[in-house]
């Protein structure tokens, strides 16, 4: 399989999971939530500083339909994570290639 097709496939699967399948995910408390509720740790939980923000709790504020709201939030999340992670990769690689160039220039036997 060509790399490009694999990457596109991975992206589409992620969109499907975050945008559609997530609606069917279990809404029970997760491991830490459950343990903290059962043993009284949750009493000290504070509200999130960004609780009023437009995407808080994986929903788009103002969108009434739960399926649409959650799905849209998932798709936005996929896009934001993709941009953030790809930028980080690009920046990290650019620093690497700058370094490589410096070393090539300073060494007497440059490699291609």
């Amino acid at each position, binding site marked *: *399989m060509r*790399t490009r097709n*694999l*990457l596109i496939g*991975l*992206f589409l*699967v*992620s*969109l499907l*999971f*975050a945008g559609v*399948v*997530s609606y069917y*995910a*279990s*809404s*029970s*408390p*997760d*491991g*830490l939530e*459950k*343990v*903290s509720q*059962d*043993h*009284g*740790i949750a009493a*000290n*939980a*504070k*509200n*999130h*500083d*960004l*609780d009023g*923000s437009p*995407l*808080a*709790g*994986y929903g788009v504020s103002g969108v009434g339909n739960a399926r649409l709201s959650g799905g849209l*939030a*998932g798709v936005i*999340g*996929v896009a*934001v*994570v*993709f941009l*953030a*992670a*790809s930028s*980080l*990769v690009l920046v*990290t*690689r650019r*620093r*690497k290639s700058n*370094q*490589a160039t410096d*070393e090539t220039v300073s060494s007497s036997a440059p490699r291609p």
Partner: protein
Amino acid sequence: MHAPDGFIDAPVSIAAGVVAAGGLALCLRGARRELDDRTAPLAGLVAVYVFAVQMLNFPVAGGTSGHLLGGTLAAVLVGPYTGALCVAVVLLVQGLLFADGGLTALGVNITDMSLATVLVGFPLALLLVRALPRAKGWLPVAAGIAAGISVPAASLVFVGFYALGGTTDVSLTTVAAAMVGVHVLIGIGEGLITAMTVAAILSARPDLVYLNRFRKREAAAVPAAPMVQEV
């Protein structure tokens, strides 16, 4: 396992923030070596995939759910340093955009869900892939077992933070037993998801699976140069 604000006191939260920042700085250095023409294109999408699958809480016993943490999966696919960065990006977006995981708890959350899962999961996967038979089919098994064990390990790291700076007065053995107990179950899900994902990518493009570079070669295989040597 996203801790909200208030579970861990300020001094320990700050200390965890320092640990997380230091760990991620190390990962940035390490990722420079790891990110070659094979891992770099995949890395962004591994982060995306981890984010998407983390939304899919699956039920475990007794009205409790769990979700993928993804550190071992990411490390197996793109390398441990890059993998930890991928999960950290996911945790940052979750905390800042979706109000999932407290902002003061970011250090705790990055340390246990990104750094700890990779630190436990990747060496274990490496060990297993060398100990298990050479056939390619064993690599997803190694990744799955390592990923499964990394989940209760991460929950123990959280318990460690709770021991140092928990704001409630609950017996430590109670918290540890409850946390490890439920996360062993969640770890089974983590292991299955990790094994299935790794198997799918391995069958399509074995060269894109970072851990595959460390698998013992099958008898007639080419004596490939496993690591890109960059000084």
